[in-house]
């Protein structure tokens, strides 16, 4: 089952809402192991996403997703911008034809390619990776996502700013994994609702 244009739009709008609600929390997470701007970076990005996908003339999921990609790329500035941007861009390339597990996997691959992170490097890959697996086995739930966020806590960061902290990065959630978690909670809520 492919997504509808409306589902795609609702998914991203819900993502935006959650990011904006959790802006301070995401920055606080980033303050602990990074530079404290993940919340405002993401908020800047999703505000632009909202603006750009409101456009009624977008008639295909791919068009919506590509706009979202461009918004993230051109508004975030931090490491997360090109990562979300690349993910959305590669997702947009197949979203009209493929169903969710393939689409999200395309995003995961884009992130891995751009950021060169692997599982357990304490990055957003540690959310995207498990989510792809869960989608494939149809076991994705909000609880699973929340557990996956928690699972980044004991990891030692090997990529991004948090890696400067070495052992001291242990014991904190990865902000990018948490923001990605919101993306997938929004997905669960908005995609396939009208089936």
């Amino acid at each position, binding site marked *: 089952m492919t997504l509808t244009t409306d589902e795609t739009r609702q998914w991203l709008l819900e993502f935006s809402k959650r990011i904006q609600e959790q802006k301070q929390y995401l920055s606080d997470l980033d303050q602990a192991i990074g530079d404290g701007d993940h919340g405002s970076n993401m908020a800047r990005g999703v505000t632009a996403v909202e603006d750009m996908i409101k456009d009624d003339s977008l008639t295909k999921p791919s068009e919506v997703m590509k706009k979202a990609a461009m918004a993230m*790329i051109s508004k975030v*500035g931090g*490491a997360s*911008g090109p990562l979300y*941007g690349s993910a959305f861009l590669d997702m947009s390339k197949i979203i009209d034809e493929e169903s969710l597990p393939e689409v999200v996997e395309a995003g995961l691959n884009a992130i891995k390619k751009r950021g060169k992170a692997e599982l357990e490097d304490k990055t957003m890959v540690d959310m995207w990776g498990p989510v792809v697996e869960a989608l494939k086995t149809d076991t994705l739930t909000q609880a699973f996502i929340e557990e996956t966020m928690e699972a980044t806590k004991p990891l030692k960061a090997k990529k991004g700013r948090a890696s400067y902290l070495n052992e001291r990065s242990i014991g904190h959630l990865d902000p990018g994994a948490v923001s990605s978690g919101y993306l997938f909670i929004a997905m669960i809520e908005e995609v396939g609702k009208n089936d």
Partner: protein
Amino acid sequence: MKKIINDSSRVVDEMIEGFCFAHQELVKKIDDYRVIVSRDIENQVGLVSGGGSGHEPAHAGFVGEGMLSAAVCGEVFSSPTPDQVLEGIKASDNGQGVLLVVKNYTGDVLNFDMAKELAEMEDIAVETVLVDDDIAVEDSTYTAGKRGVAGTIFVHKILGAYARQGKTLKELKELGDDLVGRIKTIGVALTAATVPEVGKPGFNLKADELEYGVGIHGEPGYLRETLKTSKDIAKELVEKLSQSFTFKEDGQYGVLVNGLGATPLMEQYVFLNDVKKELAESNMQIAYTKVGNYMTSLDMAGLSLTIIEFSGTTEIAALNEEVTTPSWG
């Protein structure tokens, strides 16, 4: 937070406006972008750098004939986005391609990489030289790698001279990669910087504490101690640097003492004097010296020490060449 600013969310735009007004003979801004370009874009390979703002005069102060073709200014301490960098690349290309000089931070690397891809889609040849001179962080596959700090200005200056001399993009990329490996920097902070939008210092040091190895965005260093004399600080930083070099008696080296923003020139000269004495013990030749605020961290008090090992006199000559930029001095 005691700062002479207006709206903290507008500080970068207002700074750029003031900067372009002050240096209108040398540079101009691209409309709708935070990109500063040289008014003299020569028939040469373009040299583009940039990164987060808050490091003034880096990088916009180094735009001009003989150094950068363009500088792209991000938010305070945040990489500029790919579309911004792309604009800088396009403005700097004369058909001979563009070299990006990027400080090694994940944000900068990813955003500049993406800009490179976008430029290549528009048939502009682009190469990147990644500067990672900050030896506070150990280089390993388990981290984002060493950071790019004050040594970057040597890369701007030397490659700027080479680009002016007509070197090709491929040559510049190779020369740059080689150059970067011979530049090492280590810093010390006495106080933290305050990002305007945050409103409070990025970390806290006691009234009598300093921290070695702090990065230019307030990244944690490797050692916190009670305040030391200039001599002791010089000893520590030279010691740390000497682990990355094998100082050769007949080798030629350059030294940069870089103020981080709130440390007066008086202290920087006192410190240089102590560095000179420390280095004298290695019998190395110091063929080039530079002192001042070149890669700052907003209002951070402290300084960094950079040593470059010259591959030959061409590099020294390149550093000494006259340029027409707002801030090389």
